[in-house]
């Protein structure tokens, strides 16, 4: 049985090119042109992935995320325009798994789709996360780079472990701070910046041009495993 992707967007042209390219990549596509149809299809058709446009005619896309999340943990990728960082953050905080900035190329969309699906497939079996030359053993709490063990402070480890728990997945500043520093530190992004920088110094080949711990400006960080 092929993977089914539900596309919720009110623009027929966008649905069309997504259908064509997704089908060409072997996915089965279900289309919905508004929030009501989308929520209904998500419930009745049991898709494996949702691609959701935040700007829908009948209901705010954010509400769709919440509605879907009430009964399902199906991965959700949202489509959002640039400079609406708060929308993205809100969507991620409501439970979306990733976002794509409009306008976007097909290649980028495919990469995100694959990443999200792979993560879902790997669920439950991700004790060891590989990101380039770095291996993160979540069970034994060991990090190696090109085989050499890297020493991390407790906070650094907490941060890296949280990022590694959902690789290729954007984690918002708030989510990371709450998880690693505790609920009282939800706004202390300066801590986060400092520790991310320290981690990069220890793990990245070129800390000034990071490839493992990547910044999503205004949104958060993700651990990139590479394809």
């Amino acid at each position, binding site marked *: 049985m092929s993977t089914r992707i539900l596309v919720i967007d009110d623009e027929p042209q966008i649905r069309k090119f997504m259908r064509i390219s997704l089908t060409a990549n072997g996915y089965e596509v279900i289309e919905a042109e508004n929030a009501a149809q989308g929520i209904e299809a998500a419930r009745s058709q049991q898709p494996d992935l949702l691609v959701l446009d935040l700007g829908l005619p009948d209901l705010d896309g954010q509400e769709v995320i919440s509605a879907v999340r009430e009964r399902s943990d199906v991965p959700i990728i949202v489509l959002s325009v*640039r*400079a609406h*960082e708060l929308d993205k953050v809100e969507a991620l905080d409501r439970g979306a798994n990733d976002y794509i900035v409009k*306008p976007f*190329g097909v290649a980028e969309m495919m990469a995100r789709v694959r990443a999200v699906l792979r993560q879902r497939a790997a669920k439950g079996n991700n004790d060891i996360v590989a990101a380039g030359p770095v291996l993160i053993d979540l069970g034994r*709490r060991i990090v190696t780079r090109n085989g050499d063990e890297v*020493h*991390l*402070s*407790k*906070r*650094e*480890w907490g941060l890296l472990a949280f990022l590694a728990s959902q690789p290729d997945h954007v984690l918002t500043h708030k989510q990371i701070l709450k998880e690693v520093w505790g609920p009282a530190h939800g706004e202390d*992004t*300066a*801590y*986060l*910046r*400092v520790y*991310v*920088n320290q981690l990069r110094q220890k793990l990245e080949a070129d*800390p*000034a*041009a*990071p490839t493992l711990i990547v*910044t999503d*400006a*205004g949104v958060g960080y993700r651990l990139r495993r590479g394809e």
Partner: protein
Amino acid sequence: MNDDRPSPDALLAVAQRESHGRLKIFLGAAPGVGKTYAMLQAAAERRREGVDIVAGVVETHGRRETEAQLGGLDVLPARQMEYRGKSFREMDLDAILARHPQLVLVDELAHTNVPGSRHLKRWQDVEEILAAGIDVFSTLNIQHLESLNDIVEQISGVKVRETLPDSVLSSADEIALIDLPPQELIKRLHEGKVYVPEQAKRAVGNFFSPGNLTALREMALRHAAERVDAQMVDYMRTHAIPGPWPTRERILVCIDERVEAAKLVRVAKRAADRRGAAWVVVTVETSTSHTLTEADKDRISEALRLAQQLGGETALLQGDDVVTTVLDYARERNATQIVVGRARPRRWRIGKSVTERLFAESGDFNVFVVGGQDDEKPVPSLRRPKIKEKPDWINLAFAALCVSGATGIGFLIDRWLPAASISVAFLLAVMVVAMRSGLRPAIVASVASFFAFNFFFTEPRWTFAVSDTKNILTLVFFLIAAVIVSNMASRLRAQILATRESARRTTNLYDFGRKVTAAVTLDDVLWAVVHHVATTIHGKSLVLLPDGAGLSIAAGYPPEDQLDDRSAAAADWTWTHGKLAGRGSTTLPTSLWLFLPLKTARGPFGVLGVQMSEDADMPSPEQMRLLETLADQAAVAIERTTLVADIETARVATERERLRSALLSSLSHDLRTPLVSIMGAASSLQNYDDMMDHANRHELTQTIQDEAERLNRFVQNLLDMTKLGAGALKPRADWADLNDIVGAAVERTGRLARDHTIKVDIDPGVLLLCVDPVLMEQVFFNLLDNACKYAPPGTVVKVWARRTPNYVTIEVIDQGPGIPPEASEKVFDMFYRVDHGDSKAAGTGLGLAICRGIVEAHGGTIKAEPGLNGAGAAIVIHLPQSHDIDGLAARISADAEPEGT
């Protein structure tokens, strides 16, 4: 000259009259001739024609026939006014203006209103009614006419207090003469049909004598007749009926500070009226004029004001020789007659008086000399601030001290010098007294010195007797010299004082000019005005400016935020009429403030209010002149700021227009170019897909993608710019890693930078910045995009950042052609592009403008400088970093915990 056309002046006067209401005056020679009755009859006539008539005020004095006439008319209730505990009934001006009928009946035009009314005089009320476009019927007795005032008094022995400027009567559109032969009138008086006020009962017998009535009747008839003449001439002028018009005579009246100035003016007015001549009242200011006393200055300005009221022209001439100045002016104005007062006997002056010289030098002019005393004293109306002179006893004590001093010196030098020489010491004393205290103490000092000299130093000493004839001569010469010296020295002193006063005035004006010129905004100007005026008059001042609903206080010194009702009414009146009103003026004098209009040639701008300090009700004439000048200057200054604002608005409009056209051309070019490529590539693929090999197909699809991305960048720029322009782009500053920001921008540049090497050199000390990461990423993206666009392929683009105590300096340096120095500011303007003579750089002209908008929204600066060693361009950004980085670092290191488990 072509006289076939109507005279423009005459037509203008007619035009002005048309928007105005028409005034008809029922003129009588004496009370009781039936003016009111005639007015009511005429009104009844008009009412039958369907005219909307209201009786504003009609005094029937209980006469039955008159009351019957009033019967059918709409009578406005009078307004009750309280004054000194008594209740008065006055015409309700506001009710009339509100009711706005076509015609109003206003009896007794010369009536004086109760204090507390808007105007002092009823004729001023009528002028306001006329100005509102309402016709007025009114009544007037000839004796109330200002110019006839003194004649009436001479003839009848009754001083008429209620007077009316002649100009009111002459500006009336129509005059109806109500004539009754004297015998008839006397008969009516005996029948009790003539109303006589209580206080005049005593005089009534004298007043209503046949002789008086005949004289008054003659005056009224003559006035009406002159009026007909004038109307005839007017008519001929407006309708271009060829002459002969009488040539206009011009009478020149010379006045000075002497008491009969007012009389001279009246005489001239009558003479001018009889001859239908124009008349000008002049006074000559000489270099000694400022030594005149306040009372004298007042009398001159009083006479000039009277002349204006009577419809004459006034002129202030400057010149040292009175006679030549007057004669020059007379020639210049083509005067035919010169009227002067009788020369005062001048016993002490050698040479001819002004009048005598005028006679001698007048040549073609007829010179009339008016004699007699004018017993009319200026009304001591209001208190004036007292001039603080030192009291007499101090001056006299000073004189005594000086004389004693001179005596002392006399004893000291007595041993070596002859008595005559000692007199010099006394002369010195007299001079000192004259310089310091003025003429009178100096004369006293002279006499005292004379006696002291005689008593102490002439033989025989210690007596007033003089033995030697030589000494008698010495004494006499001493006295003469002392008096001359006192005279001269005191005059010098007066001049010094006057010069000082005038210097003060000039300095004051100069200061004011400097202050208001330095003020840029309207608020600054207003503040300078109120502050300066308040300190000048030692009182309070405020400026009112119009706002939507009416006048409101724009500035005050000391600050004031509310005006009482009466003052507000006076201010409004000044604003609408452009004339003085309030305390000390003739309009609304019960207001606490005096208001001066602030107007320039372009029209009124506002109102200046002044309030004197406790000890004075109104400004002295000197201060009044100064205030008027200040008001003029203030108005000009206010006008200047509004002009500046106008120019600014115009500049903004031009700029907006420039931007609009730039935007249009940019849109049509930058939107269309990528669209052309996309459409071309897409249609090629659609039509010739079969004929193309894989490489060509790929190239076309690549074109579509590149151009679409370019379009996307352009749209993004436009959106950002719109948000910046609308102020909607607010940075959401948060701690961010500069490396991250620059890294993201470099990544986004992607293919655009495929031909360039981007080197990032960020000092580790610049790790954390408090900025909006998304917006700053856009800044670096735009800068890198620009650098790659302009710098030749293969070159290096460098991003460099360092921290200084308060700033983070970030530079983006390329090795391109650089930015010409003259364009280094303009490149940040919207739609500006550096012209390189080719169309290679497909910029939008928005990139740098957006960068500047974002950086400035962060409180930073951005500028263009030459690159390294003067080659290429460097865009330098300074971002303030006042946040406590060190504190932050401390907190973070405190957070660090031992190495992981």
